[in-house]
Structures are given as C-alpha cells and as structure tokens.
C-alpha cells in the first residue's frame, strides 16, 4: 500500500513536503502506528512520537487522511474507505494548528498553556479531614466522561476556533478539564474558575460545531461539558 507522510525539518528544509512510501501489510488490518514502524525501517530520518501504543498515553495523535486520531488504536480499515484495500493512500500529517518541530512531531506548548490556565487540580480551602474528602457515588458519577481525557490534543487541534485563536480560546480539551473540576464536589473554587471563563474568547469562542466530539479517541464529549459551563455562567450572571 502507498503511504504519504508529511515531512519537514526546519533546520534543512525550506518548506514542508509530502513523501511517498510503499509498505507491504500482507493484507492485514494493521494499526497506523504499525505502518509508521514499517516506514521507519525504510527511512530512519522520519520522526514521530509514540509511547504506550495502546491509546493511553496520547503521544501519537496525528491527522490521518484528514481526521485527527491516535495512530496506535486506529486500524487502517477505520482511516478511510479504500485505504486497507490499497485503493487509496494512507495520508499522515501532524496535528493541525500547532507548530511543527519535525515531520509528525508538533510543539504542544500552546496546548499545555491553555491546560495550565484552567488550574487542573482540586482547590479546596476548607480544613482537610483526617482521612480524605469523601464523595457520594452520585457526586463521583458527575466526573465520569471528564476525567478520562488523556490530553492527546486531537480535539483542540481539530477545532477552527483553536486554530484561529490558540492563545485566547482555551480549546475543548482544557474546557473539558475545567468542567471536570467545576463538577467535582470536593472543589470549592467554582466562582474563581467561572470568573476566568466569562470573556468573549476563553469559552465563548466555541460555536458548537462538535469537531472535538467526532475525533476524541476516548469517546468524550467536550461540547457537552462546554454547554454545562455555559449554563453555570448563565445562572451566575443573570
């Protein structure tokens, strides 16, 4: 099968280009990460990130035939119709909207800056109990679908609002994490958290197009979380 990979080395290349490779999959429905390993055997200079190879670490987020996802848990048959059969090439590009360090490796700095802004840790200024802060099963259930985020950046880098204003719009991943702590019964910094989201960019740049939902490899729904935060802002603001 044909594989077309985005290649760019800022130190030697004037501009990015797509490089074609031929890979023998022996008809197997391999994961995209396996294809990258086969390409790496042919061309040691091609760079990509990987670690756990089972969809937990979030290192190998990339754009596969136009859609973001994790290479390690995306089989060829799910990339696009015709790719597995070799009728169409597998096209791999880095996550869109972030600066490219080299080939498929992007600089995640802007993404992590936005994550840092939502203060993704429990804040509670009441005296700590002797053992731990308890939650009822119902309270605990409220953070299901939120805490599972692995920060792979597939969602934020598929969001046009994040592409245009990556320094001002927090992006779906950071906003999902923001709601994860707003929804946590043990956190009591709700007012401080909400007051930082009330401007026209941080949260309200979300226009609800749900690209984030369609690409999340963990099946999470940042749009719904953003809607919950918006409701909290509405209750607080009027």
């Amino acid at each position, binding site marked *: 099968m044909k594989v077309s990979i985005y290649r760019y080395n800022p130190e030697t290349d004037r501009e990015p280009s797509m490089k074609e490779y031929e890979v023998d999959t022996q008809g197997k429905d391999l994961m995209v990460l396996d294809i990258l390993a086969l390409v790496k055997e042919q061309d040691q200079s091609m760079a990509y990130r990987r670690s756990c190879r089972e969809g937990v670490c979030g290192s190998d987020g990339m754009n596969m035939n136009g859609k973001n996802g994790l290479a390690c848990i995306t089989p060829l048959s799910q990339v696009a119709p015709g790719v597995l059969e070799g009728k169409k090439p597998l096209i791999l590009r880095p996550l869109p909207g972030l600066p490219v360090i080299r080939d498929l490796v992007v600089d995640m700095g802007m993404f992590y800056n936005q994550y840092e802004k939502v203060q993704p840790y429990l804040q509670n200024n009441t005296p700590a109990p002797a053992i731990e802060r308890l939650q009822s099963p119902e309270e605990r259930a409220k953070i299901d679908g939120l805490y599972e985020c692995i920060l792979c950046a597939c969602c934020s880098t598929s969001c046009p609002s994040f592409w245009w204003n990556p320094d001002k719009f927090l992006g779906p991943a950071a906003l999902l994490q923001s709601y994860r702590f707003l929804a946590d019964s043990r956190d009591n910094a709700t007012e401080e958290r909400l007051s930082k989201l*009330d*401007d026209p960019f941080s949260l309200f740049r979300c226009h609800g197009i749900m690209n984030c939902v369609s690409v999340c490899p963990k099946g999470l729904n940042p749009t719904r979380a953003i809607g919950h935060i918006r409701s909290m802002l509405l209750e607080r603001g009027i």
Partner: protein
Amino acid sequence: MVTPVTSLGRNGLYDWLIQRVSAVIIGVYLIGMLGYLMVSGDLDYGSWKSFMGSICMQIANTLLVIAVAAHTWVGLWGVTTDYLTSLTFGKAATGVRLIAQVAIALALVVYLLWGLVLIWGGA
C-alpha cells in the same frame, strides 16, 4: 482571562445572550410576517401601509432593526477577530481589523438610524 474586550456586551456571556435573544426576535418576526402574508389574502398599498403603520408593527419593526444590528455586530466582531489576525496579516493585523470593525460599526449605525427614521418618520 482575556482582558481587551471590544464586543457589544463587553463580556462573553452577554454577547452570547445578545446573539441568542436577537436571533429569537428575528425568527419570531419572520414567522409572524410569513403568517400575516399567508392569511392576509390580496394585499394592496393601503392595507400594507396601515398594517406597517400600526403601533404594534412599529414596535416590532424597531425591535427587528435593533436585533439585526446587534446580531450582526456580535457575529461580525467574531469573524474579524477570527480571520483578521496576525496569522493572516502579520503586523498589519490590528490596523486591518480596526478598519474593518469601524466600517462595520458605521454601516450598522447608518442602518439603525435609517431604519428608525423609516419606521417612526411617519412619511
């Protein structure tokens, strides 16, 4: 939090609310107007003028003109701050954005005043 704010409500929540409320006003007006046109049968100039000249329609038209202006401003402010940025225009972005926003604001003020004159001018 982002501090430089030049949107209509000067706050994301109020901009969002203004856009939703104005959309509802525009939607209700359009449906109401469509309903009127469907049930009113043969319309002539006299009946149209007396319909539009009624105090209810003057208030509805005023609300519509204000809603369209507010909706347009919030929407286009979003478009200009999405696309007329340093990513597309480099260092000239602030100037380009300012010119575009001033042009949009002036056009909307003219539209608003002209609309109000037409509605309440009694011509």
